[in-house]
């Protein structure tokens, strides 16, 4: 995070409202030379990149989180101020590029005023002026420059081929020559920023608070101290989540605001109204306006937000997304699996046979494999999410879904994380970062792991394929497909009910009120969509990769040690004896002996003993100790259940969920008294267990990281596993009572 020690290049912050094209401009200016990290203490991604100015100077460009205002209540909102002003640990920018949406100028100027007040050289990049021209409107750039006291450059983040004039202005600003050309400002103000007339009492309040702004923030500038005083008056309250505010400033701002309130004044109203009064006085000079017309976006929304049509189209889109996640990703997943198989074989052929080769192939390669096998689905999912975000449709989705989500105590913004949960809970947990309130975020994180993620799919496929015949009911409905769909529906309903229950118990109280802006629609900018896809995939690998890998390796140890020496001796004898058999039978005899050895070794391993130990616990659910071993294996990652069962039943670990041998083994598996272990009822109980139990270390690790506490992951594990046990118990015992 410490950029100053390693990096002497000037720092330029790119700030602006959400949906102004800020990130598009950032991508255009930096190309693919971006560095994604995290801000200290919060899980908001800190994206910085490098950009060369016309003179050849290289600058570091920081993408400041989009904000409507620098005023903050949460720790996440506080970042915008810290980046723009360079306080509380963030390096101070040498210049700021402020991206404003020309079609939303008056609202965007509100943030612009706050940024300008800080006194850092600013260059205004006025984006989407081409959109304004289409409506027959025009911005008076000279007037804007004069009033703001900053250079203004018209850009089209989407369509421009080069940004030379913008970058030239940045170079000028860095050289200390950032003011607009032409005659100097009339009011003789020492600060570069626009000066606003404020009520006299408010001026006195601000002067009072400004005295408590530390020197390290104000840098000795009165104008800057005043700007922080305004920020503190608007932001600080008794119970906020801000962390970087000096105690003196906090106490003074609170006292001053309360004193004003006792006198019947609201400092919030006065400060916000003063900024808008300044804007409103000048807006007619900034934009030369034609008659207002219904915009293209409004016409599109007449269809996409139509009560019936809009909802229908949305559902249609969801079907396409699901189809993509489960059908289109198949060939890609096949490729990945094939490639990992080749890597394993290659490792086997290079390494001398023995423990180390087993470790590399069954521990390391298998671990890496179970990480990368999820990538195709994650990339596809984020392709759709990126596309929906980039075109502006995502805000409409949040609007369409708000009522349903709100009934469950969630907000419309929780929809995307829930949707992502069908692929994998880890990126879904990362996707909750866009939510404003900690309560809403936590609640969403605690229910997302209930969604049917792709790791459960192989388990369902195996069990359904083994225990239910591929027949068709009611003329055309395949039983197996119906069961699969039922499992998805079941998990979705449980997640929604869990949210409803948690929001009425542990998270009682209102969620944040919704203020949802609908940005204008625009054609997708493909490099941005693809860039986001890559960014999210790499953060998935960062967050989940290590944990899954470590778990798979740890699991391999648990299931391989201690070695069963008696079984090994038996195996050696069998192999020797096999040499005397006719040649045609030798290979199969050795193979059978190998599988037998694997199965015996597993039974006596720590994992196998643990399976035995928990048998009394899982017996009421219809599971025997062998299934128990599979459940232990599934804890690293659910899909490991399939290969673990392959080893348990002496077939070998190289099976997949489509394997007929494994399905036959499952059907044939019997208790000591000859009853089959797997009845359809046991299969159902097992699937319900997999649907609800928290068998995913990387989910727990992600939640630990995001909440910065062990409490929440422990809570999640306990509530999900308890829920799974109870539900499976009800299914199995209830089924037995019904005579199934």
């Amino acid at each position: 995070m410490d950029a100053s020690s390693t990096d002497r290049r000037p720092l330029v912050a790119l700030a602006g409202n959400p949906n102004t094209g800020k990130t598009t401009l950032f991508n255009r200016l930096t190309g693919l030379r971006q560095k994604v990290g995290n801000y200290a203490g919060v899980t908001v991604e800190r994206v910085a990149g490098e950009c060369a100015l016309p003179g050849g100077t290289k600058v570091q460009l920081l993408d400041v989180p989009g904000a409507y205002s620098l005023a903050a209540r949460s720790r996440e909102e506080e970042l915008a101020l810290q980046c723009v002003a360079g306080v509380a640990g963030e390096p101070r920018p040498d210049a700021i590029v402020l991206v404003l949406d020309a079609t939303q100028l008056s609202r965007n100027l509100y943030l612009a005023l706050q940024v300008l007040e800080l006194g850092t050289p600013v260059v205004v990049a006025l984006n989407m002026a081409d959109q304004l021209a289409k409506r027959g409107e025009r911005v008076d750039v000279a007037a804007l420059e004069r009033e703001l006291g900053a250079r203004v450059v018209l850009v089209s983040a989407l369509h421009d081929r080069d940004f030379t004039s913008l970058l030239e202005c940045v170079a000028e600003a860095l050289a200390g020559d950032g003011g607009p050309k032409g005659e100097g400002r009339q009011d003789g103000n020492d600060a570069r920023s626009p000066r606003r007339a404020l009520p006299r009492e408010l001026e006195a309040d601000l002067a009072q608070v400004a005295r408590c702004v530390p020197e390290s923030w104000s840098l000795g500038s009165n104008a800057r101290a005043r700007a922080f005083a305004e920020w503190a008056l608007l932001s600080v309250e008794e119970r906020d989540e801000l962390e970087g505010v000096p105690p003196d400033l906090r106490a003074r701002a609170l006292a001053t605001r309360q004193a004003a309130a006792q006198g019947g004044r609201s400092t919030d109203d006065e400060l916000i109204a003063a900024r808008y009064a300044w804007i409103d006085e000048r807006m007619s000079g900034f934009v030369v306006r034609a008659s207002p017309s219904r915009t293209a976006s409004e016409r599109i929304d007449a269809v996409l937000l139509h009560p019936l049509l809009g909802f229908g189209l949305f559902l249609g889109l969801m079907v396409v997304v699901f189809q993509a996640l489960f059908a289109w990703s198949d060939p890609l997943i096949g490729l990945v699996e094939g490639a990992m198989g080749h890597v394993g074989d290659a490792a086997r052929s290079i390494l001398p046979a023995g423990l180390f080769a087993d470790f590399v192939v069954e521990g390391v390669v298998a671990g890496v494999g179970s990480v990368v096998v999820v990538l195709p689905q994650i990339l596809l999912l984020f392709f759709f999410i990126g596309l929906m975000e980039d075109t502006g449709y995502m805000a409409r989705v949040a609007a369409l879904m708000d009522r349903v989500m709100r009934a469950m105590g969630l907000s419309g913004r929780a929809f995307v994380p829930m949707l992502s949960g069908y692929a994998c809970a880890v990126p879904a947990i990362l996707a909750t970062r866009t939510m404003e309130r900690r309560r809403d975020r936590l609640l969403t994180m605690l229910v997302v792991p209930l969604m049917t993620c792709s790791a459960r799919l192989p388990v369902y496929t195996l069990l359904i394929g083994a225990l239910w015949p591929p027949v068709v009911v009611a003329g055309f409905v395949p039983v197996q497909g119906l069961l699969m769909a039922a499992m998805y529906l079941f998990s979705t309903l449980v997640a929604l009910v869990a949210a409803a229950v948690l929001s009425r118990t542990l998270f009682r109280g209102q969620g944040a009120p919704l203020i949802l802006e609908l940005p204008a629609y625009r054609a997708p900018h493909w490099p941005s969509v693809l860039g986001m896809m890559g960014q999210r995939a790499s953060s998935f690998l960062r967050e989940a990769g290590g944990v899954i890998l470590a778990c798979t390796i740890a699991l391999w140890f648990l299931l391989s040690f201690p070695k069963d020496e008696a079984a090994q001796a038996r195996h050696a004898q069998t192999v020797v004896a096999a040499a005397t058999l006719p040649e045609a039978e030798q290979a199969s005899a050795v193979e059978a002996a190998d599988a037998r050895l694997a199965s015996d070794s597993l039974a006596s391993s720590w994992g196998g003993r643990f399976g035995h130990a928990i048998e009394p616990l899982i017996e009421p659910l219809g599971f025997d100790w062998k299934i128990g071993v599979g459940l232990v294996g599934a804890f690293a990652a659910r899909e490991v259940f399939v290969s673990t069962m392959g080893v348990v039943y002496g077939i070998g670990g190289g099976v997949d969920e489509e394997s007929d041998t494994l399905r036959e083994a499952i059907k044939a598996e019997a208790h000591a008294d000859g009853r089959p272990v797997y009845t359809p009822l046991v299969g159902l109980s097992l699937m319900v267990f997999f649907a609800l139990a928290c068998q995913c270390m990387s989910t727990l690790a992600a939640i630990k990281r995001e909440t910065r506490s062990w409490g929440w992951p422990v809570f999640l594990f306990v509530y999900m596993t308890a829920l799974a046990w109870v539900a499976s118990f009800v299914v199995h015992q209830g089924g037995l009572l019904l005579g199934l």
Partner: protein
Amino acid sequence: MALLATMAPGQAARIEAVGGERSFRRRLMEMGFLPGTQVRLVRRLALGGLLELEVRGGHVNLRIDEAAALQVQPL
């Protein structure tokens, strides 16, 4: 004085007062919902339970009950 929820889609109104909890109220005002400002009810989202409002050229959705923080005078 009236509530936005009682207006017809397409109708414009002037904001008379902004209420609500402090951070919500502050964010509303910062997004341009100030007393004296004109708003237009663009549409109601029947299934979403939201009101889409146009203020200062931007389109913002509020929940019907939470939009009661805005008291308006229909124009």
